[in-house]
């Protein structure tokens, strides 16, 4: 528990430290905070669920006056229902929501806001501006750009790469567009882009087919660590690991471990952590627990993880 609290504190450091030291006398307020997130349908959302749960557990212990309700949805439709229930039945004071899809969730969240609920959106924004009080997100264009920069450096500006896209979503489009844009003007050729759904089995199959189709592949951008691990198996099976580079993304612990151990195929990762839910819940909790004024946009960086800095992104207990 202590370890959980510590990592929570280190991530939400600015808000927590500032608030805890400067307003010790602020009145604690009874409040109910609803957290609506996608269900664990792939590795990243699995990690998201894990970090949500341990954050809420830690906060409950620290602030007994706060009550939390977590709902997980396996579709946008279910999430809309969840939010309606949170507002109408649970009578929440604040909503932390990671929208399944931006468009369908905009209206229900707007309605919640109209009912006086404090709204924090995480990762994906809504399609209308000005609804949420607080936005905490990863940097998706940077995600694609960092990947492109990595390959430019790694391949010395020239080579042939294959790309695996994720689940067809707005996020995937933003990343891929930024990636393509950052590669413009270089001699790096993208041979093909197929969807691998951020899924290890699909990553394995798509990579097998890429390897059959293209006699020369210098590097793979799998877009996600789950898919990258599938690709690695296919590359090893085909005996083409020599001189090959695989880049995934988002910071799965198994992959970060490989980087720490000096793996020859994967030597870097892009941070896009499911931990971004932690500061969002933390900030909202502080608003009610100690009366901290929190609003605005908080964009977390997507730095490149290499052997040098891997340790600080390593959560061995997380399922992702």
């Amino acid at each position, binding site marked *: 528990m202590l370890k959980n609290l510590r990592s929570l504190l280190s991530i939400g450091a600015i808000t927590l430290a500032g608030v805890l030291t400067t307003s010790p006398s602020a009145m604690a307020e009874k409040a109910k905070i609803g957290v609506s997130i996608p269900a*664990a349908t792939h590795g990243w959302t699995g*990690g998201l669920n894990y970090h949500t749960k341990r954050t809420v557990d830690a906060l409950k212990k620290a602030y007994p006056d706060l009550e939390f309700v977590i709902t997980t949805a396996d579709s946008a439709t279910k999430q809309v229902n969840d939010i309606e229930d949170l507002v109408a039945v649970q009578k929440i004071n604040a909503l932390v929501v990671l929208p399944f899809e931006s468009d369908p969730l905009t209206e229900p969240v707007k309605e919640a806001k109209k009912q006086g609920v404090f709204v924090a959106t995480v990762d994906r924004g809504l399609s209308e501006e000005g609804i949420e009080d607080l936005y905490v997100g990863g940097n998706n264009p940077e995600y694609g750009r960092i990947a492109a920069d990595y390959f430019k450096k790694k391949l010395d500006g020239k080579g042939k790469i294959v790309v695996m896209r994720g689940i067809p979503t707005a996020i995937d489009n933003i990343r891929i567009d930024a990636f393509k844009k950052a590669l413009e003007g270089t001699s790096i050729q993208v041979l093909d882009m197929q969807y691998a759904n951020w899924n290890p089995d699909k990553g394995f*199959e798509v990579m097998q087919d890429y390897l059959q189709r293209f006699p020369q592949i210098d590097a793979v951008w799998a877009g996600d660590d789950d898919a990258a691990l599938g690709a690695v*198996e296919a590359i090893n099976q085909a005996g083409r690991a020599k001189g090959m580079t695989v880049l995934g993304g988002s910071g799965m612990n198994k992959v970060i471990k490989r980087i720490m151990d000096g793996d020859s195929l994967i030597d870097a990762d892009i941070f896009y952590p499911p931990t971004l839910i932690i500061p969002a819940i933390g900030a909202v909790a502080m608003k009610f627990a100690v009366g901290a004024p929190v609003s605005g946009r908080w964009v977390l960086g997507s730095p490149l993880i290499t052997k040098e800095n891997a340790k600080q992104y390593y959560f061995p207990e997380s*399922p992702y």
Partner: protein
Amino acid sequence: MSDTIAVPNKLPAARGRYRIGDHLTAFGPLIALVVLLIIGGLINESFLSSANLSNVLTRSALIGIIAIGTTFVITAGGLDLSVGAMSALVAGLMIMFMNFAAATLGTGWATVLTGIAFALVLGTMTGLVNGLLITRWRIEAFIVTLGTMGIFRSLLTYLSNGGSISLESGLRSTARPIYYGTLLGIAYPIIALAVLAAIGEFVLWRTRFGRHCAAVGSNADVARYSAINVNRVRIATYILQGLCVAVATLIYVPRLGAATPSTGVLWELEAIAAVIIGGTVLSGGYGRIWGTIVGVLILGLIQNVLNLTSWFSPHLNGSIQGAIIILAVLMQKGRATR
């Protein structure tokens, strides 16, 4: 329940006039497969390479082995929607069991073999549960297996905490050859698929149990009056399905050494589609394993061909897949449903 359905295996003579089309329709799926192979070869020269075909066949072995069991279930007039979730659950529990057993048995074959035995028992048990719920409690197969699908899948999600359940690395290297190893240049999963398909075809056509499956699926009441223990036959098909799922899991786990909540998603539909493409009648009474295998290969090859070309936007992959599935079935219906 299906006595009004046109059954494509009837001898042409039985319907009076001999028509060449009847032969064509019986071999429809095979023709579709050959056409697909030719198209694939034209699209990309590496398509027909032994390495590529070996990849596709090995990948297809997973669904193929499951679909053998599905053929029995459907022939006997049943349906099992839970196989994908069941694979995920069996895979997850098998990995957890092996990781646990490794503490005492070490990371050698002793642990892997106990893991295999464990998976087979588990598959049998889950199949038995489906079968008992359907026959003893007389709940529709669709509802029972839809229910167990949700139960199996969420149990796995719970056990994995939403992430992945991974096999210890020592065990992984021991088990790895099950998927990647070869005998005389042929990958083990392909051999397993071929052997199981041959056994399945034999059981379905040459044993009493096989004939009983067709009889029960064709008309359960008539079968009952013919002194066939209908419930026992049905339960047996679900157990067989569970066993097939377990065998497929044995091949799946060594491949990536992990089970995740996305393991086996939609495998049930792929298996059912393969069975129907192969010429088995969805409402029961007639099944053929070779057709199922051809169906599995068609599905596997479509995906492979799509990955080997940039002709289509990947957004459209699903529509091409859908069109080919419908065409393949159309080819065998042809004249029969005029």
